[in-house]
Each structure stands twice: as structure tokens, then as C-alpha cells.
């Protein structure tokens, strides 16, 4: 079941378009922001609200890189693997993150704190290497800075 707040927020997006389904990406993001990911149940609820079939909505949901159809950790780390970051030391950052967290891309730490994912160019190439954690961009990365950043999010939890 969608909460009243989720339903209201989705309806406010529906008002921005002439057809309901145009709000479906926003709707998926609303649910994901509240629950971390989009379950089959949530997907069906959104589909009903937007007068789509669940298949039509899943077709959209599975296309976009940032809609999660599986549970993720409390914090999602998006490490840029595109060309400028690759030149400036992406591999080293990936290895360091993997070692520190004990997971590879697509993995979630056993304590449920972090999920690690690759992401395409974050548009901050003059400060490469770059990653996002949740909604925040962190740039000019080096292993020591990554350690500091991870500690900050752990404490926040």
C-alpha cells in the first residue's frame, strides 16, 4: 500500500503532465526515496494509480539505471566509472572501496549499511575521481578521503 504522503506527492507530479503515465518515473522515485527500492507490491500500487499495467511500468522501471528493483543498503555509493575518472584513478578507488566494504559492484555489506554500484559520468570531470553517496557528490577522491567519507556515513547511521 502506498502511504497517503506518497500518493499525494505522486498526484502532484501527475498534475505536471497531460497524461498520467508521464509521471511514472517520478512515482517510482518517490516510492524508492521512502523505502530504498521498488518492490513488486509497490510497483503494482503505482501502476494502478497511474492506470498502467504492472508490466508496462516494470518495462520502464527496469530500463533506468537509478531505479532499484532489489533491496539496497542504507547508503548507496555510486562510483563513476567513465573515461575521465578512469584516467584519473578510478580502478584504484574501486579496489579500495571493495576492500574496505568487502563487496563488489552490486553487493551490499552484511550490516546493510552500504550498496556499491558503478555509475556513468557524474559531470564533475575536472575533480575526478568522483562518487556520489546518496544525494551528495564527493570529488577529488583518494583512498584516505574515501575512508573519511565512509566513516561519516557510518556515524550518521
Amino acid at each position, binding site marked *: 500500500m502506498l502511504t497517503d504522503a506518497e500518493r499525494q506527492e505522486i498526484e502532484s507530479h501527475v498534475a505536471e503532465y497531460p497524461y498520467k503515465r508521464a509521471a511514472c518515473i517520478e512515482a517510482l522515485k518517490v516510492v524508492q526515496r521512502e523505502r530504498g527500492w521498488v518492490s513488486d507490491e509497490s510497483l503494482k500500487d503505482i501502476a494502478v494509480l497511474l492506470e498502467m499495467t504492472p508490466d508496462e511500468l516494470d518495462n520502464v522501471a527496469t530500463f*533506468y539505471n537509478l531505479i532499484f528493483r532489489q533491496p539496497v543498503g542504507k547508503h548507496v555509493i555510486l562510483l563513476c566509472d567513465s573515461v575521465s575518472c578512469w*584516467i*584519473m584513478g578510478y580502478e584504484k578507488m574501486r579496489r579500495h572501496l571493495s576492500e574496505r566494504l568487502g563487496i563488489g559492484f552490486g553487493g551490499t555489506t552484511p550490516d546493510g549499511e552500504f550498496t556499491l554500484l558503478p555509475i556513468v559520468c557524474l559531470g564533475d570531470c575536472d575533480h575526478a575521481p568522483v562518487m556520489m553517496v546518496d544525494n551528495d557528490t564527493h570529488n577529488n577522491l583518494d583512498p584516505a578521503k574515501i575512508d573519511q567519507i565512509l566513516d561519516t556515513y557510518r556515524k550518521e547511521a
Partner: protein
Amino acid sequence: METPLTRNIQPDRVPLDIKSSERADGYQGLRKALKELTPADVMETVKQSDLKGRGGAGFPTGVKWSFVPMGDDAPRPKYLIVNADEMEPGTFKDRLLLEGDPHMVIEGAIISAYAIQAGVGYIFLRWEYKEAERRLRKAIAEAYEAGYLGKNILGSGFDFELHLHVSAGRYMCGEETGLLNSLEGRRAIPRAKPPFPQVSGLWGKPTIVNNVETVSCVPHILRNGPDWFKGLSLTADGGTKIYGASGRVKLPGLWELPLGTTLREILFEHAGGMQDGYQFRGVLPGGASTDFLTEEHLEVKMDFTGVQNAGSRLGTGTLIVLDDQTCPVGMVQNLEHFFAQESCGWCTPCREGLPWVARTLQALEDGNGLPEDLEILAAHTKLLGPGNTFCALAPGAMEPLQSALKYFHDDFERHVREKGCPWR
């Protein structure tokens, strides 16, 4: 030297609010357009300015607008879309404008909408640009409050609603017709052309999609005139350009410079040249989907024709620099992996061909390359080239590959001969 696009952008990028923006000539171009000019006048002014699209293709903006049906019989509503889905690897110029001067982008959108008589607009923004999202939301609300958006703007009788649409991440959304499908709540797959979006676009209505930097030029063209805009440039294409550089240069960053500034000046003056201990080997002049240029091209003027004559494209104008301690084969593998992953899967050559290319390059890197792999790669640059795929994604992906095979052929051969990457 005048820098109209960035003159109100502070070093920390905190943007001017609407009052400060108005004191700095913000919304003056819009006032002039609505109070003194007809939509046809605005279109003509932009045509005369020689403004060409800054998203990569370089099509003349005023000409693009002129394909939109006008008059009482034209289908309505028409749509004006600002493409702020900046996802071309190595490109970070639109972020500067969106974060640094959102009111300039909004003003440009309103004037562009007036020219084509669009009733509704969307700024199509990528999810990852969180700061831009916050600042645009605030600026749009301020613009509504000030009467620059909504009904009867500045008493002109012109109505325009502007919404912010935040995407969920997919490179294909930057492709004009893929963007339209995405905005309709579908997968971002390309549409057949014709019909062109100017005639039948979003929900079948006439639609213009313009890049952030393109619409940002429009208020200044209206305020100062097309001749002034042409005069900003060193060449035939009008205006300034936000150039950038990333990679092993001393001062990576962004600079607003006259269109037609040479590659050498951007690389060695503004970007400070190579970092100590690194030598210049080549550069992608305008994002991931442009051909490499090398030492011999340093005097090339970075405008649409200059870069084209050198065998590449101006693209987004943001340089990605290859140094001597970075493997060109590895760099191209990284690029092709990106394109293979971001292919929407709609047409077979792109869906099947790009992963094959990426795997072949990976085999070279891992020491499993065969002599015939270089021929297979070369064949793909033709098979996935212009005319063989549904949209420009795969042909764009072939540009760095075909030029790497040309300029760095010895390095490819070494990977086969030495059974692995010499840089590892």
C-alpha cells in the same frame, strides 16, 4: 573579452536570486522580446546571430525553430524542452550554467518558447545533478512569482508553464527522440524520423528540444543583438563557448572563450598544459563520442567547421586528454564499455555490435587478443557507422575507436604481440 554566459556566475557557483539577477540585466532579453518583438522577429534575430546548437550536433538554432508550424491552425500545445540530461562522458559544462545561473536558463527557455509559441515547457534534468535541481526549483518558483512564467507574461498575452522533470539515469535520454519517449513515461528508445519532433514530438505535438548552453545564449542575443553575438566569435559560428578539459592537465576546468579558440590555447594556456611527468598524446575534443585529435591538430580552431575539417567534431567542447602513461586501448575499452551498457537495445547492430567491440578490446587488454581482432574492430567502425543504426549512439561510439585505430595503431598491435597491455 566578453563572457555573457558566465559573467554572473560566482566562483563558488552560488547563483544570484531573482532580484540580484534582474539588477544584472536578467530578464531584460525577455522584456525586449515580449514588448517590442513578434515571435517571427525573435526567430529571425536568433537566425541572424548564427547560434548553433551546443549539445553536440551544431544545428542552427533559428533554423530548427523555423520548422515548427506557426499560426492559428498549428497544433497545440506546442512544447519547448531544455535538454539538461548532461551524460556525455567527460562533459560537465551544462552543470556550471544550471547551478551557477538558473535564471539565465529559465529566461532563455521562455524567450525560445515565445518564438515558437510554445505553451508548455520542461527542463529535462538528470537525477545526479542534485544541486542544480534545488536551484532550478527555487528559480522557477521565483520566476512564477515575478510574473515571468504563467498566464499573460508581463502583460503580453503570452502564456507559458515551465516544469522541471528529473530523470532516472540513462544516456539515451540525451538523444532528442529518446528524451521525448522518456518524458512520456516510456523507455528512452529513439523514434523514426520523419516526422521530426518540430512537427510531431512530445505527445504528437510540435516540440523543440534545445541544449542548456544553447538556450542560455538566447537572452544575450535578444538583449545585445545578433551582430554583437556574431562579434563574440573568432569564426563564422556566432558566440562564445564553454570549453573544458579533464585528464592529466595542470588546471582541469571550464572556461568561456570565443568560439574558434585554438585547441592549443585551451590546452596549454587555460588548462595549464600537461601535469609534470606526463606527455600529451591525444584528445577527444568534445566528449566520448568524438574522434581523437593529436599533436598535429593543436592549431585547429575549436568551432564546428574547424574541428570537422580536422576529422572530428566539436561535440560538447569539453576536452578529454590522453597522456603517455594511459593506455589508449584501455581508454577506448572504457568508452566502448560505456556505450555498450547505455545502448537502449532497440536496434540489433548497436545492441549486439557494441558489446562485441567492448569484449574484443577487453581481450586485447587481458592478453587474449588475436591479430584478426584489429580487423574485426575496424570492420565494426563501418558496420556501426552512420546509416546502419537507428540513432546516433553507435556511430558516435565508433568515432573514438576509428580514430584510435588510426593514430594509435602501433599500440593496438603491441597488445597482440606482447600478449597484454604494456601499461599494466
